[in-house]
């Protein structure tokens, strides 16, 4: 009987000791002891892990470099493609804005019918100011039709093939446009020049022109429709001994950046040559 009772006391003592240790552990009193025991194990584990990782990297390095190079090349290709797409989209945005402006211009003048055309070249001779557009007789373009942009008057069609046409700009030395200056209501004849400067000659001395006055087509002569913006007066020259005054005109159209133009296809220019021949 005695050994059995002793065993029970030992068991109770063990349970009490275990419960005490558990309570001490839950209370955090044994943490320094555990840490002290576990830290060397962590140290050994870390040392082993870093060595193993270094060996693994050494073994796998060539494969990684090859895959990284392939990935780099792929990313470069994707980058180049995206850059190309950005440029294309930017061009489309610019073209869209231009077309939108042209549409606004066309809507503002519903009496006219328009045909849009792209500028595909300029005259190779520096003496002449002509452009070549990508619409021709197949698209209903005829000789004499006026050409405008969203900014104003560009010129008129002087030669047509099936798929292209040549346009004489108003800045050409041979170009003459009947114009009216607003608000003074003075009529004049606008001429181009070698330097692409526009000028109005033969203005009566009593006409009151001011820099900034707007110049529109007058429609006189039947070559161009009336009320198309040409530009604005930039300079007026009056000389005391002269019979007329002259004015320089700043064109509303930037001819160096002309990309898309509108041709007024329902305008019939008048042919005055029979009348002129009878003279």
């Amino acid at each position: 009987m005695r050994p059995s009772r002793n065993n029970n006391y030992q068991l109770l003592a063990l349970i009490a000791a275990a419960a005490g240790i558990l309570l001490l552990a839950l209370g955090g009193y044994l943490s320094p002891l555990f840490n002290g025991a576990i830290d060397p194990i962590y140290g050994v584990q870390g040392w082993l892990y870093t060595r193993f990782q270094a060996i693994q990297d050494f073994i796998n390095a060539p494969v990684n470099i090859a895959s990284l190079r392939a990935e780099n090349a792929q990313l470069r290709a994707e980058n180049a493609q995206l850059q190309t797409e950005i440029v294309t989209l930017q061009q489309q945005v610019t073209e869209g804005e231009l077309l939108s402006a042209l549409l606004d211009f066309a809507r503002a003048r519903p009496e006219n019918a328009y045909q849009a055309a792209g500028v595909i070249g300029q005259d190779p001779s520096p003496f002449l100011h002509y452009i070549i557009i990508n619409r021709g007789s197949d698209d209903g373009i005829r000789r004499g039709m006026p050409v405008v942009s969203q900014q104003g008057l560009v010129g008129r069609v002087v030669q047509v093939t099936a798929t292209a046409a040549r346009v004489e700009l108003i800045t050409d030395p041979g170009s003459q446009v009947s114009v009216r200056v607003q608000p003074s209501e003075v009529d004049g004849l606008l001429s181009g020049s070698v330097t692409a400067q526009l000028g109005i000659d033969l203005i009566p001395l009593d006409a009151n022109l001011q820099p900034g006055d707007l110049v529109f087509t007058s429609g006189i002569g039947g070559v161009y429709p009336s009320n198309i913006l040409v530009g604005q007066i930039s300079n007026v020259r009056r000389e005391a001994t002269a019979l007329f005054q002259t004015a320089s005109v700043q064109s509303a159209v930037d001819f160096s950046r002309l990309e898309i133009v509108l041709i007024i296809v329902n305008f019939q220019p008048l042919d005055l040559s029979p009348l002129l021949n009878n003279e």
Partner: protein
Amino acid sequence: MRTLVALLLLLGATLLQVTLLPRVRLLQGSGDLVLLVLLTWMLQEDNRPDWRLGVVAGVMVGYASALPDLLLIAGYGLAAFSCQQLNKRIWKMPLITLLSSVIAGTLLVHVLTLGYLWLSDNPISPADAFNLIILPTLLLNLILLLPINALISELTKTISPSGTP
């Protein structure tokens, strides 16, 4: 083969002349790429100068220009002819022949154009034409001459290495 290459070169030069060159201006003058390609091609050692190439160049430019075809055919044909004569009779120094051919060709084409504009009741002041168009064009032509000559020279060597005909 050489003729075909020359025609393709002139065609390419004409296209560039219509699309690109008018945007590169000095005052109102612009380089005459067709004339430069024509003359540099004619004066390459391995090529035989032929004034008829000038006529072809005139036809090509005439197709793109509002000036009369005959005027341009005459202008470029005379420029090529003068180049041929200079090469044959006066000097045998290629660079000087090239420079004088370009100067003579530029002046010929422009003076003929100016004369035509005067006759067609579209007069341009000779002083303006000289100062604003002819001189700047001549200067641009001389600037463009050396790189174009180098390009054409390399091309000619590629077509016929070691001077084989």
